[in-house]
C-alpha cells in the first residue's frame, strides 16, 4: 500500500513515543538506579554495583524474605481460588436458566467498586466485634475469627476480600464456554454419559486456553497487590501481610531509599517472568487448541 511505513508510524507514533517515554526509559533508569544508593535526602549518590541485590539475597534484609514469603503464600492461595471459583460460577451462568443476565450483572458488579471503597466495606464486614461475618458465624454457632487482625488468618482474609471482585474473570470464562460447539456434547448424550463426563471430556479440555489466559493474568495481578495491603492492613499484624509491592512502596517512598527499592522492583519483575515462563512451558501439556494442535 502507498507510503505504508510513513503512515503506519505516524498513526502509531503516540503509542510508540509513550512506550519509550513512560515504559522503556523508566525501565532502563530503574535498572541503573538499582545499582546506586540513591536517596532523595542523601547528599551524594554513589554507584554501588550489585550491592543492593546482594543485600537483598544475603538475608541482611529480613523484611525482603518476609515480604516474598507473604506474597508467595498469597499467590498460591489466591490463584487456584480465583480460577476454581470463577470457573464454577461461569459453568452455572452458562446453564440455560431464567434470569441469567441478572445473575451475571450481580456477579460482575463488585469488580467495578473502587479498591478503597471495597476495602472499607470488607473491613466493616470482617470487623471482629461488630462485623456481619462474625455475627452470622456466631448465629450459626460456628467459631468466629479475628480475620484481618490475626497473624494466621490475615492472608486468607485478604484473599476472600479479593474474591468479591472476580467478575471479570468469570465473564472471560463465560465467553470461552459459549464458544464450545453444541454438537460436541451430543456425542456424549448418544453414549449415555452424564454431566460429569461432559465436564471432564469436553468442557474442561475445550476451555483450557481460557484457563491458561486467566491463570497468567491472575498470577501477574496477584504478585502486584498493593491497595489491599495499604488500606486494609498496612502490612500488619506483625508484618504478616507485608505484601511485596507494599514493602517496595514503603522502602522507596516512605524511607526514600529509591535505589534499593528499584532493586526490589527488578527482582519482582524477574520473579513474574519466571512464573509466567513456567506456566507457558507447562501449558504445552495441558492447553488444547482446536484442531488438535497444541500450543
Amino acid at each position, binding site marked *: *500500500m502507498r507510503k*505504508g511505513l510513513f503512515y*503506519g508510524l*505516524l*498513526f502509531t507514533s*503516540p*503509542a*510508540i513515543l*509513550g*512506550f519509550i517515554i*513512560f*515504559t522503556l*526509559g*523508566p*525501565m532502563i*533508569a*530503574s535498572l541503573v*538506579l538499582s545499582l546506586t544508593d540513591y536517596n532523595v535526602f542523601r547528599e551524594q549518590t554513589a554507584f554501588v554495583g550489585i550491592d543492593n541485590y546482594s543485600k537483598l539475597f544475603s538475608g541482611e534484609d529480613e523484611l525482603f524474605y518476609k515480604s516474598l514469603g507473604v506474597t508467595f503464600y498469597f499467590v498460591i492461595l489466591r490463584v487456584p481460588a480465583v480460577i476454581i471459583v470463577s470457573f464454577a460460577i461461569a459453568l452455572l*451462568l452458562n*446453564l440455560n436458566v*431464567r434470569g441469567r443476565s441478572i*445473575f*451475571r450483572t*450481580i*456477579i*460482575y*458488579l*463488585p469488580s*467495578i467498586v*473502587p*479498591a*478503597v*471503597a471495597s476495602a*472499607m*466495606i470488607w473491613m*466493616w464486614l470482617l470487623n471482629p466485634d*461488630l462485623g*456481619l461475618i462474625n*455475627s452470622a458465624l456466631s448465629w450459626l454457632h460456628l467459631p468466629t475469627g479475628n480475620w484481618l487482625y490475626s497473624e494466621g488468618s490475615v492472608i486468607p482474609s485478604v484473599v476472600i476480600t479479593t474474591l468479591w471482585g472476580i467478575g471479570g474473570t468469570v465473564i472471560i470464562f463465560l*465467553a*470461552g464456554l459459549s464458544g464450545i460447539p453444541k454438537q460436541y*456434547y*451430543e456425542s456424549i448424550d448418544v453414549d449415555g454419559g452424564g*454431566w460429569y463426563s*461432559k465436564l471432564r471430556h469436553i468442557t474442561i479440555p475445550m476451555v483450557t*486456553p481460557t484457563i491458561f489466559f486467566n491463570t497468567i493474568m491472575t498470577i501477574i495481578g496477584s504478585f*502486584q497487590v*498493593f*491497595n489491599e495491603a*495499604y*488500606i486494609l492492613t498496612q502490612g500488619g499484624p506483625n508484618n504478616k501481610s507485608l505484601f511485596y*509491592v507494599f514493602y517496595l512502596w514503603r522502602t*522507596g*517512598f516512605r524511607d526514600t531509599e529509591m535505589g534499593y527499592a*528499584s532493586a526490589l*522492583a*527488578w527482582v*519482582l*519483575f524477574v520473579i513474574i*517472568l519466571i512464573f509466567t515462563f513456567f506456566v507457558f512451558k507447562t501449558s504445552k501439556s495441558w492447553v488444547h487448541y482446536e484442531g488438535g494442535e497444541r500450543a
Partner: protein
Amino acid sequence: MKQSKLMLTAGYAALLLISATFIIPFVWLLRSSLMNLSQIFTMPPEWIPKPFQWDNFHRALTILPFGTFFTNTLIIVAGVLIGTVLTSSIAAFGFSRIQWKGRDAVFGILMSSMMLPAAVTLIPSFLGWKMVGFYDTFYPLIVPAYFGGGIFNIFLLRQFYLTIPRDFDEAAFVDGATYFQIYRSIILPLSRSAIIVVALFSFLGSWNDFMGPLIYLKSDSLFTLALGLQMFQGSYSAQWDLLMAASAAVVLPCVIVFLIGQRYFLEGITLTGLKG
C-alpha cells in the same frame, strides 16, 4: 446440550445463593450508611435503618471537602478519558488497517509491556515528573493517557478493527481517500461500541486509581475521592455510619455508569479473551 430438570434446579439454587453472597456486601454498605451509630452497634445486626439517617451523607461529605475531591476526580477522569479514546483509537488503526514493515513486531513489543510490573517504572517516573516540576499536580496522572492510552486499550480496539472487512478501506482508497479520512469516516463510526468500551474502562480505571494519586498528589486540595476516602478512614475509623456513607457516595457513580453501559462492558471483556 440437554439439561436435566434436576440439574437446572440445582444450578438455579446455586446461582441464587452465590448472587446473594455477592450482593450482601452492598446491602450491608447501604444499611450501615443510613443508620445511626447506636443502631449500627446493635447485636445481632438489624437490616432496616430506624430511623433512616439521611443526614449521614451530608455529614460525611462535609467533614472533609468531598466536593473538591469530586471535582478533582472529575478533572482527572475527563482528561484521561479524552486522551485514551483519541490516541488509542488512532494507534489501533495504525496497528490494524495500515500495512507496514515491522508492524506486528512493534505491536508485540508494546504488548509485552503488559507483563511489566508497574513497580518497575514507578520510581523513575516519579523522579522524572518531579524533575520537570509537575509533582503535586494532575499532569502525571493525565498526560500519559495522551500517549497511546494504554496498550490494553489499543489491543482491545485493534481486535475490533480486525473484524471490519478490508473491502471498505480498499473502496475508499480507490475514491482517493486518505488514511485519516478512512479512520474518521469509516472505522470510527463502525467502532462506536468498542470505543464506548474503552471509554468505560478508562473512566473506571482512573476513577478507581489509588496508587497514582497517592504517589503524585501531596496537597489535600488536590486529593481525589479515593485518596479522600482513605484519609477519612484514617481520621474517623470508628465512625462506621459516616465511613459507610462516604464509601457509598464513592461507589454510587461507578455503579450508575456500569448499569448504563453494562451491555458494552460485558462485550468488551469478552473481546479481550479472544486470541489476538
